[in-house]
């Protein structure tokens, strides 16, 4: 018996930015190798810890059925869910959160999966779910009382409390799914599946796949850039989250296949260049590069991107001559990409964080290189300036070199400026920016 657990970033297959979605397809692929019949039951869960900043933050869970019949379990910070203390995703200005406490995490289970005899879902205590599954292969038939209604979750006293059962170790409010499959005997079982090759495992003629879709909904507020609250890129066409998730559920098998195809192509390329060890490291790096950025949609109208003062070269030319003339609203609607530094107090818009990945963007999706440079260059061109507001929206960049970064994720408003002018590194940042900008311009 081979059981493969595959996470596919099928919503972020690089060459296709237009298909970018906040989804990850998960497949539990079961392949018998002994020819005998088996009953196989599978369990997968995501707990509330994934949608809160700290483990004591409260969550609210909900379930619904999507138009395609897929079951959609969701969980959100009580604030993001419109609880008693409505909040915004952008916390204290100078204290960026290190984890999400805005938006909703989703676990959706597509309907009509071939080979699956039964699907059950559950909202409630993770310990309860795990224990019952381990003993019986099933989930509780009803969600925990109150879960999803803003009432005490898992017997706690605080509405929507994330931690269950008085803090029992490992026990949390959870979104769980169980699959049941009856594997018939096969007269000629496949040869031992290649467990090192997910694509081959999935394509095995005797394989049965249980699929689910993980998604994160930023609720249209991912990044704030000088007063402009920017939604996720996939929302640019006013697509609803429900419609996006439903499409991901109906197309989950196809999107996994597309991811596997890219996997095959890129894997072969990497292995040819640097051997298998290099390919494995590069594959994980590939995932993490795209995972550390948020791709958002700038609609060209939000914020104050009108007539700002001309970019200053004051220090080099006396401040009165030689300035470029700023053009109001010159940046058209487009994608923007914001990184979050892992070891740098959560800095965003950081030139040198993304510079090492420039070649990957150029190879896979050059527009992403432009997307990360665009907000940086817009700020330095003073397109973000608005004299009608106070700091930072009236800030103009006075230096003759490239800024280091734009703020602390998810707020890119130079909130670091009055502290230390955002740690200027003139030579490195200017060189990085010039190299990336020139390379992108040579392509387009």
């Amino acid at each position, binding site marked *: *018996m*081979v*059981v493969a*657990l*595959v996470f596919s*970033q099928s*919503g*972020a*297959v690089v060459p296709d930015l237009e298909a970018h979605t*906040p989804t990850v397809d998960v497949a*539990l692929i*079961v392949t018998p*190798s*002994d020819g005998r019949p088996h009953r*196989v*039951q599978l*369990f997968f*869960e*995501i707990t509330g*810890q*994934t949608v809160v900043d700290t*483990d004591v933050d409260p969550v609210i869970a909900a379930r619904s059925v999507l138009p395609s019949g897929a079951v959609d379990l969701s969980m959100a910070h009580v604030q993001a869910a419109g609880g008693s203390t409505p909040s915004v995703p952008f916390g204290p200005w100078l204290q960026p959160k*290190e*984890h*999400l406490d805005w*938006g909703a995490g989703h676990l959706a289970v597509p309907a009509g999966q071939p080979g699956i005899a039964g699907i059950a879902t559950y909202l409630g205590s993770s*310990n309860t779910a*795990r*224990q019952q599954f381990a003993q019986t292969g099933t989930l509780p038939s009803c969600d925990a009382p109150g879960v999803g209604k803003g009432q005490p979750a898992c017997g706690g006293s605080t509405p929507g409390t994330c931690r269950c059962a008085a803090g029992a*170790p*490992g026990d*949390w409010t*959870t979104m769980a799914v169980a699959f049941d499959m009856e594997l018939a005997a096969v007269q000629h079982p496949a040869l*031992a599946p290649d*467990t*090192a*090759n997910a694509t081959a*495992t999935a394509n095995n003629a005797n394989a049965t796949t249980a699929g689910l879709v993980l998604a*994160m909904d*930023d609720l249209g507020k991912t990044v704030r850039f000088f007063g402009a609250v920017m939604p996720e890129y996939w929302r640019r066409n006013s697509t609803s989250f429900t419609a996006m998730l439903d499409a991901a559920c109906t197309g989950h098998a196809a999107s996994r296949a597309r*991811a596997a195809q890219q996997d095959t*192509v890129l894997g072969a390329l990497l*292995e040819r260049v640097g*051997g298998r060890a*290099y390919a*494995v490291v590069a594959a*994980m*790096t*590939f*995932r*993490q590069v795209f*995972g*550390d950025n*948020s791709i958002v949609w700038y609609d060209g109208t939000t914020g104050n991107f009108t007539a700002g003062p001309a970019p200053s070269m004051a220090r080099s030319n006396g401040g009165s001559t030689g300035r470029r003339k700023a053009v109001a609203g010159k940046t058209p609607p487009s994608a923007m990409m914001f990184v*979050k530094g*892992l*070891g*740098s107090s*959560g800095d965003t818009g950081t030139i040198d964080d993304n510079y090492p990945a420039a070649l990957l963007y150029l190879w896979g999706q050059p527009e992403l290189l432009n997307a990360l440079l665009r907000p940086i260059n817009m700020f330095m061109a003073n397109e973000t300036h608005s004299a009608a507001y106070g700091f930072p929206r009236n800030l103009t960049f006075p230096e003759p070199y490239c800024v280091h970064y734009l703020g602390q994720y*998810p707020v890119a408003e130079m909130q670091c400026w009055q502290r230390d002018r955002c740690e200027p590194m003139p030579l490195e940042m200017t060189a990085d920016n010039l190299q990336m900008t020139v390379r992108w311009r040579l392509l387009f």
Partner: protein
Amino acid sequence: MTPHPPGIAAGACRAAPAVPLWVHSPYTNWLSPADTLTGDWVYHVRGDKVGSLTALVRIDNITYSIMGPVAATTSAIPPIFPPSSSPSSSSSLKLSLPRAAATTASTAASDGPGEGDGGLCPDGVPGFAGVHPMLQMGPSAIKPTSTHSTFTGTTMCLLSRLDIVCTPARVLLVRPCAAGLAFCGVFISPKADRKKYPSCRGWRGCSAGLLTERRRCP
């Protein structure tokens, strides 16, 4: 000859320090940090927060853990991975990463023939790991959650083998970079450092198989 990174002896198999699983944005960024997929919880990329993504499989009424140290933390669950009662003749399950998981990270549990010693050196590749050893499962999966080394108070899942010590001095410890060149110091948290040593600002680097952690004080 298959190349391997400089500074790592040929034949020495290495563990990738973490495998990104549910990775979409800076906040939705969950990785598996342990040597086995069941050896520890899935962690946030910062290494300071657990995300309890777990998976179990029940084959002919015997339950096994695929992801997360469920058996170690939920005592009510019957033993998972009974060493002598695997679904077939084998006493352990093996997991492996696909050849090149550009967009897919994969694990597999198998009762079939093993893939070599711990699945660490498939295809005879010397040097750096071709397969993530965290993906090997076995009786060790029921051990309690491993205790990570901490760096200035923050759990650093990938630094568990590096044992870095921070002092206010200019130069910090230099230790063998057991986790491999490509991942050195990624999870160090200057924010935490600054709280402890506000006069120091750090930078990190890795060369010749050594993790170097240096501090520049004013």
